[in-house]
């Protein structure tokens, strides 16, 4: 019985652990059901309120009913406790309920372990340096909480607990780094990860309404980053290929079913560009690569018949793909009838004015190239405007755009162009992706933001194959040359204008992004290949799993020895005062030659005994001890006297009479 009362938690301990739990759940609140957050907060408030009145946890039946109801409700809502998100939510709820029933220190230990696991779960999903720092901070506070679970009264100052926990963490850091660097990594998952419900991700999708891309144009979010090894393609060749759209219903372009024909064999021309794309996680299956990809290193990826690069599973994690692309292609073989049919299909009932226009132009230009130039010429000569804020379009969007509003974004032009091509019997398709990119001169890579999303067309020219045509370039050529921000300089985007006027801010943003890229390359993507390079750098022959284990063991032994030395070193009383330190050194030296100072001996008594035992040292030791006493007990000792004493002690090196003759 007495042990139980002794173990009972105090209000202060409860407050500490509630704070830790609160901080852990704080970064998840957006993804927790609102009532779970409310339950945890209420549980903490009730338990703290009871503790403040010196009362115990609510009786067991009440706690049981609450727990049963809450967990049951959660299961009804989530349908599963499997997977990271659902599991974390459940753990958070359990931690809150546990808080309600906390009676002894054991319960607090349990909550702290749940907090550790929640921190890990948050880190499995996140990838930023800030999240890691935050979770380490939570871990720090949680371990400080454990220090408060002391049995001896009085409990020390809070600041001391936090400092001591911090020191333990700091001492753990070298070992943790060694573990992280040398613990063998495996390539893929050990078992299949449960698919989490994907979050709504920004970015391109496999459908396109003309207005879609201009929403993306407002987003500054990074779509992906690219590092070229070797030459960089010029601006007009930096088209990053995303979903290719074939089906048009009069309003919307869709990807449609494209698995019907094998890929056309292409002949690649021009210089080859080798590069690595660092892709962010996405719910989609395509990889963004430079037009037109010929080789890539991702074994799971394959090339579709319309030259997209696709992976079987959605990208749940950031990946790097190294690929080679060529700027120009040609195809000698004719287009297969099925593919021609897919890319020539137009709904007969919609956009009638556009169809008539196409017929007129086609009559004047029976040659395919002549017809294409005539359409582009129309965009260039007639008053077509390029704007981020195009007017809304109604039933026949292509008609309204071409004849009425004449204001649009890349999506409008790509859509209208493809319709005019198909109406004239030229197979055409819309390609969405990104164009251009911002060069980061601080770390030599390119950033592609969502604002650089773009749409263009590909048309089939007999004898040459699929050729890229960017009708938007006909409207505002400088857009293709300089990217979005310049072509809409007159637009309403105040932030981008402000950024252009403050180059240092742009630089700062680029530097920050360079650090992110470094973080991603060095930390997030650290893998067995990086470990091999590391071992190679350490000049360890034949890198591999065994060598890693060996190095890790060596690091562990060294780390543990260092720890042993470090923690014992802290046992020595730290003498802040240099004079005391010097005196301690004097006593240590005399001790090492067989005349240790006894605990009860003052300086002068000690000196007398040394003089009796070792007459040869007597005068020196007496003088030193006398100076020490004066420094300690004289009313106003001189500053120089202290320095002189310290120097004298440093010079004093007694010889062991037992060893010497």
């Amino acid at each position, binding site marked *: 019985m007495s042990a139980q009362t002794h173990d009972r938690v105090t209000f202060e301990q409860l407050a500490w652990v509630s704070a830790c739990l609160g901080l852990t759940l704080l970064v998840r609140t957006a993804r927790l059901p609102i009532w779970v957050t409310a339950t945890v907060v209420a549980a903490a408030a009730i338990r703290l309120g009871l503790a403040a009145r010196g009362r115990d946890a609510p009786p067991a039946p009440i706690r049981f009913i609450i727990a049963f109801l809450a967990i049951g409700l959660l299961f009804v809502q989530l349908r599963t406790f499997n997977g990271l998100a659902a599991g974390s939510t459940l753990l958070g709820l359990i931690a809150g309920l546990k808080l309600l029933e906390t009676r002894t220190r054991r319960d607090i230990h349990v909550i702290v372990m749940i907090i550790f696991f929640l921190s890990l779960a948050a880190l499995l999903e996140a990838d930023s340096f800030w999240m890691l720092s935050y979770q380490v901070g939570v871990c720090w506070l949680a371990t400080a909480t454990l220090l408060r679970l002391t*049995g001896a009264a009085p409990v020390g100052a809070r600041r001391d607990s936090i400092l001591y926990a911090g020191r333990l963490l700091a001492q*753990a850091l070298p070992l943790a780094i060694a573990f992280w660097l040398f613990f063998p990594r495996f390539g893929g998952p050990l078992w299949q990860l449960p698919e989490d419900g994907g979050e709504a991700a920004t970015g391109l999708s496999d459908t396109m309404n003309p207005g879609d891309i201009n929403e993306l144009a407002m987003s500054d979010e990074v779509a992906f980053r690219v590092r070229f090894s070797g030459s960089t393609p010029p601006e007009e060749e930096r088209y990053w290929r995303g979903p290719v759209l074939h089906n048009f219903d009069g309003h919307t372009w869709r990807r449609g079913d494209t698995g019907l024909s094998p890929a056309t064999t292409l002949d690649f021309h021009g210089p080859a560009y080798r590069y690595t794309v660092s892709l962010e996680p996405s719910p989609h299956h395509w990889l963004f690569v430079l037009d037109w990809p010929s080789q890539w290193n991702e074994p799971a990826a394959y090339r579709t018949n319309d030259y997209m690069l696709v992976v079987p599973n959605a990208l749940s994690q950031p990946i790097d793909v190294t690929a080679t692309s060529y700027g120009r292609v040609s195809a000698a073989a004719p287009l297969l009838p099925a593919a021609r049919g897919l890319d020539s299909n137009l709904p007969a009932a919609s956009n009638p004015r556009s169809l008539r226009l196409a017929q007129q132009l086609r009559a004047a230009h029976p040659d395919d190239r002549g017809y294409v130039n005539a359409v582009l010429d129309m965009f260039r000569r007639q008053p077509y405007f390029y704007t981020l804020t195009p007017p809304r379009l109604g039933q026949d969007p292509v008609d309204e755009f071409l004849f009425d509003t004449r204001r649009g974004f890349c999506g409008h032009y790509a859509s209208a162009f493809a319709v005019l091509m198909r109406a004239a019997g030229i197979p055409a398709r819309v390609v969405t992706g990104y164009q251009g990119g911002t060069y980061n001169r601080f770390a030599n890579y390119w950033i592609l933001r969502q604002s650089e999303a773009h749409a263009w067309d590909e048309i089939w020219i007999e004898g040459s194959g699929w050729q890229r045509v960017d009708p938007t370039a006909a409207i505002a050529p400088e857009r293709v040359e300089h990217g979005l921000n310049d072509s809409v300089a007159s637009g309403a985007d105040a932030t981008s204008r402000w950024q252009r006027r403050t180059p240092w801010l742009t630089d700062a943003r680029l530097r920050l992004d360079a650090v992110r890229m470094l973080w991603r390359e060095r930390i997030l993507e650290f893998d067995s290949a990086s470990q091999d390079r590391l071992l190679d750098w350490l000049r360890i022959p034949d890198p591999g799993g065994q060598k890693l284990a060996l190095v890790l063991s060596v690091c562990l032994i060294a780390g543990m020895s260092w720890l*042993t030395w470090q923690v014992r070193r802290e046992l020595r009383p730290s003498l802040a005062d240099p004079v005391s330190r010097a005196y301690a050194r004097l006593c240590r030296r005399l001790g090492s030659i067989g005349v240790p100072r006894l605990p009860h001996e003052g300086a002068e008594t000690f000196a007398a005994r040394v003089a009796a035992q070792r007459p040869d040292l007597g005068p020196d030791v007496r003088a030193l001890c006398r100076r020490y006493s004066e420094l300690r007990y004289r009313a106003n000792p001189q500053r120089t006297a202290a320095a002189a004493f310290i120097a004298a002690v440093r010079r004093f090196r007694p010889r062991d009479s037992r060893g010497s003759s």
Partner: protein
Amino acid sequence: MTRVRQAAIARLGAWSARRHGPDALPLTVNRRRIYIIPTRFGLALALLLAAMLLAGLNYNSNLGLAFGFLLTSLALVAMHHCNRNLLGLTVDAVAEADAFAGTDASFEFLLRNDSGIERCDIEIRCATAAATRSVPAMSYNHAVVRMPVERRGVIRMERFELRTRYPFGWFRAWTYAQTPLVVFVAPLPRGDRPLPSGAGAAGAQAHAEARGDEDFSGLRAYEAGVPLKHMAWKVLARGGAPAVRSYTGLAAQPEWLDWTSLDRLAPEERLSQLCRWVLDCDAAQRPFGLRIPGAEITPARGPAHRTACLRALAAFPAETVR
């Protein structure tokens, strides 16, 4: 399960005794005698860390792995700190204690910390009883371990233990001090028989109260065990040898507390009655002697004498009683 555990603990203690031999107090804890094992929280943490490692590897998450490795290293660091918390600590104890059956025996300990760090949560454990103390840097603290004793007799514990779970409660470090602790459990004072001299408890009390200056008969030389209130402080203050005031009538009539005078009672009852008489006589500051089978204590007075008598009663072997 508990029995297995207790047997294991006893064997470990005995093994440690063979390894280190008997210890002299004060004892400074060196590193060879500190043992350490994970607690159940430490074992749970180990499982958690294994799960974290698997999760980190499976999700291919370098940040998750970093966090897991940080916690692993933290546990290893905590192990060193737990061990260090005992290292170099000095413990001294009053190895003998007196108590009455049915009350608590109190063992006094002194913990001295000559190091530059605070020693938190040091638990001193004697068999089942324990006390927890913290000792600041370059300081000392004392602890009293109260152990309930039910029966009369002499209880001898071969060793006591210093334990700590600090810092995080994930490890338990402990050391054995192979120094016997002895508690003399005197019988519970009970019984209403009058004193053999006929004065009875009440008479002795009245006698003590009636004593005044007129009983003062002179000074005699100081001897150990005399109550402090009988010291002749003025003589000492004048620079004389320590002296004790003596009173007439007290030294003259020694009371013999005799086992044989209580032949009607059961043996334990007799011991309880004798204990009652010892306490009464001591309270009245009367000289008394104790005579029990196997022991005879000549009449005297004072705390030392009283303790000797109570210990004789405690040590009276239970099996020889018929």
